[in-house]
């Protein structure tokens, strides 16, 4: 910036500040006149001196509506505000607004003196002139031309140094009364923009959509990320850490052994995460917005929880470093009196962040603020390069100008790092000097994954159940087995009833449930992709049997549709296959019997299914084909019975299922038993007449959760089959 530019811009900013002060004085006079006009006391006195009262009212009304004086100047109080808004809609202006608008024009002129390229550019100059002259149509046309010629992002970036002023100027002078308050705040520097200066939509209302108490979970960085973390504390080191972890919903805490041997701590908070505007991460767009305009946000609360979890002693010294939304969030932490009573926030460094109206709770906190004037993000609170107020004289403010890269590139942490490393050496050295106690060896680093609220336990509530350990050959196992993600296919076949009854003989179960005189047999295959016992696949062959105590009841069909807790009918298991040794060793406790342990392939899509039991050279069976049309249904629980021998107790096992499934009434699958297989399961399938059979009905579920607990002994009496 040249000396001439500074000599020009300085007096213009001083004049702008003086005009704001004059505008506020005029506004106060208007407020007093409005208050007098709407004062009940004056009205109550009217009967006592009607003539003098009418004259007073007439003079007051004249004072707040005289176009040659205060202008249309109703302001303050409910009636005054309403009248003011109605006047704004009609295009009426007050003297105070006109004076403050001129202050904004002077601010734009000051920025233009610093940035001659703004007024050298005919398109931007046309826009600024139209906005300043209250020529709405021309301003809109100029903005449209600029956007068409440069693209929205480039146009906004070029406008960034005067973005807040142009928006505020337009808002003050347009006929929309909703954006006037925000424009007034921007123009007078009395607070952050409470509303969108274009539409008047309340920023607080938008920010309030970002809800959550904030949560932080420890997370492990990848080896590549860890390798990039700084080993020695410094401003660039901490900012590079932020770059290393990226905008991935994480933050990092480090402990540094200072030159005096004292270990202090540094919280590093990245900016907004790309993706959905409102995700579970507090670093989403809404989170960035709420961090900027609210005193506390899910992001800052999540950071506080990370610091609490990190295990710092009471009063531990802490430096806060943040970029973009992270800078606003760390400033929210710095202004949180509760947080500052637990820890000593010694430094807060915000880079590319909208933090003009943040105030640290502890006056000893040293604050540094670094912003590129072409970066739009720091202007989101309404104050940018044109600001004429010294909003925080005790802060170290680096408001620089680098037009080599426009927004969004100029907002990136890497660009700020490059600027601080190469172009802002003096500023960097000053900040590093102030960060002296943190300029030592990094002795601990811990990353945190942040979220708006504590994450719901996986599988809640279905899989949130009490568990109990049981011994198994593979070691202690917690039951029930909780499957977080699985898929399943149940194929129902019509089998030889005599063969089915033979297989049930002496078990106490049966006779097999009949459908059109045929025995109902199921082949249930499932892939438990993620369970408390790891991933495994299983297949069960079962004969559907009724309630062991009411064998001839007609209620078997509705009973089969009940949940496992009330179902009496079930599948008597005559063969099982699993591909996991650990599960196989648990099988006697889980459903009874010794399963065959073999390779089990299972593929299921919305259209087809493929099951193959046994390795290619030792294939036992395959079940594959098209599933046919499907109807959406709720996935069903499974109930299985087993009895190894007549002398053994009968066991009842159940699998509780949660998820959606599809019923396929016309499946085109076919079961094929390998002719060379001498396995008992293959023999049983042949015996039941199922080799080459198509199922009557299939139930497929591509995503489900299950709970499988230990089987329970049931006192089913032995029973011998009779001709049926």
């Amino acid at each position, binding site marked *: 910036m040249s000396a001439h530019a500074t*000599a*020009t811009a300085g*007096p*213009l900013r001083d*004049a702008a500040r*003086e*005009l704001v*002060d*004059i505008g506020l*004085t*005029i506004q*106060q*006079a208007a407020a*007093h*006149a409005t*208050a*007098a006009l709407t*004062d009940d*006391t*004056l009205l*109550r*006195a009217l009967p*006592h*001196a009607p*003539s*003098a*009262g009418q*004259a*007073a009212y*007439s*003079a*007051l009304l*004249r*004072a707040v509506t*005289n176009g*040659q*004086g*205060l*202008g249309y100047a109703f302001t303050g109080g409910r009636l005054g505000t309403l009248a003011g808004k109605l006047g704004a809609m009609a295009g009426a202006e007050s*003297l105070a607004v*006109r*004076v403050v608008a*001129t202050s904004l*024009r*002077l601010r734009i*002129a000051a920025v233009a*003196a610093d940035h001659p390229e703004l007024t050298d550019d005919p398109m931007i100059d046309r826009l600024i002139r139209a906005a300043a002259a209250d020529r709405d149509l021309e301003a809109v046309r100029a903005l449209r031309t600029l956007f068409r010629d440069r693209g929205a992002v480039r146009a906004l970036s070029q406008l960034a140094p005067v973005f807040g002023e142009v928006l505020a100027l337009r808002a003050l002078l347009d006929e929309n009364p909703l954006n006037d308050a925000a424009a007034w705040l921007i123009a007078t520097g009395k607070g952050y923009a409470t509303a969108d200066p274009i539409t008047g939509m309340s920023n607080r209302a938008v920010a309030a959509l970002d809800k959550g108490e904030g949560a932080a979970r420890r997370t492990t960085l990848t080896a590549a990320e860890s390798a990039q973390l700084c080993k020695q504390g410094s401003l660039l080191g901490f900012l590079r850490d932020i770059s290393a972890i990226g905008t991935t919903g994480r933050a990092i805490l480090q402990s540094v052994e200072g030159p005096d041997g004292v270990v202090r701590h540094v919280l590093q908070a990245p900016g907004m995460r790309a993706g959905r505007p409102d995700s579970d991460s507090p670093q989403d767009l809404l989170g960035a917005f709420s961090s900027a305009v609210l005193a506390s946000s899910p992001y800052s609360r999540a950071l506080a929880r990370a610091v609490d979890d990190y295990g710092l002693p009471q009063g531990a010294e802490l430096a806060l470093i943040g970029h973009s939304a992270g800078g606003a969030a760390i400033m929210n932490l710095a202004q949180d009196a509760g947080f500052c009573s637990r820890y000593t926030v010694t430094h807060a460094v915000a880079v590319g962040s909208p933090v003009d109206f943040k105030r640290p709770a502890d006056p000893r906190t040293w604050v540094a603020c670094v912003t590129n004037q072409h970066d739009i993000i720091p202007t989101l609170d309404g104050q940018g390069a044109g600001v004429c107020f010294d909003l925080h004289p005790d802060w170290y403010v680096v408001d620089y100008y680098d037009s080599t890269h426009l927004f969004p590139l100029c907002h990136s942490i890497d660009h700020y790092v490059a600027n601080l490393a190469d172009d802002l050496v003096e500023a960097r050295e000053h900040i590093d000097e102030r960060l002296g106690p943190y300029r030592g060896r990094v002795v601990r680093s811990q990353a945190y994954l942040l979220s708006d609220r504590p994450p719901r336990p996986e599988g809640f509530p279905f899989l949130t159940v009490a568990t109990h350990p049981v011994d198994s050959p593979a070691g202690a196992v917690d039951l029930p087995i909780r499957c977080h993600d699985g898929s399943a296919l149940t194929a129902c076949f019509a089998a030889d009833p005599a063969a089915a009854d033979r297989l049930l003989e002496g078990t106490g179960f049966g006779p097999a449930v009949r459908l059109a005189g045929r025995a109902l047999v199921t082949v249930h295959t499932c892939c438990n992709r993620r369970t408390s016992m790891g991933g495994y696949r299983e297949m069960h062959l079962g004969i559907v049997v009724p309630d062991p105590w009411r064998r001839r009841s007609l209620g078997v069909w509705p009973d089969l549709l009940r949940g496992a807790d009330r179902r009496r009918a079930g599948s008597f298991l005559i063969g099982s296959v699993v591909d996991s040794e650990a599960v196989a060793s648990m099988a006697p406790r889980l459903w009874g019997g010794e399963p065959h342990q073999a390779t089990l392939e299972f593929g299921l899509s919305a259209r087809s299914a493929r099951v193959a039991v046994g390795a290619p050279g030792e294939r036992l069976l395959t079940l594959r084909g098209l599933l046919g049309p499907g109807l959406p249904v709720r996935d069903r629980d499974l109930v299985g019975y087993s009895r190894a021998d007549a002398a053994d107790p009968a066991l009842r096992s159940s699998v509780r299922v949660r998820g959606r499934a599809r019923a396929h009434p016309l499946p085109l699958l076919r079961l094929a038993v390998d002719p060379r297989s001498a396995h008992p399961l293959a023999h049983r399938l042949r015996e039941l007449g199922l080799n080459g059979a198509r199922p009557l009905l299939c139930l497929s579920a591509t995503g489900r959760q299950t709970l499988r607990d230990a089987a329970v002994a049931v006192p089913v009496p032995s029973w011998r089959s009779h001709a049926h």
Partner: protein
Amino acid sequence: MPTDPTAITARAEALHSDARQLAACADRLRHVETTLAAGGVAPPWLREAVNAYLTACTTAAADLDKAAARLWHYAEGAR
């Protein structure tokens, strides 16, 4: 219904004080313009704008003074 002339008087005094401040604002506005003009940095549109505002400030100060005077008179009558 009882009346409170002191409340009306207080309003009048506030307006009278505002009138004095607005008159001072006219001087401040003039000073802003002359300072910038002397430094050679005044935008070309500033003089016209400031002249309009300082005239408006003077008029507004007169309006407020008049309103204050009438409020005092009103307060007297309401006693």
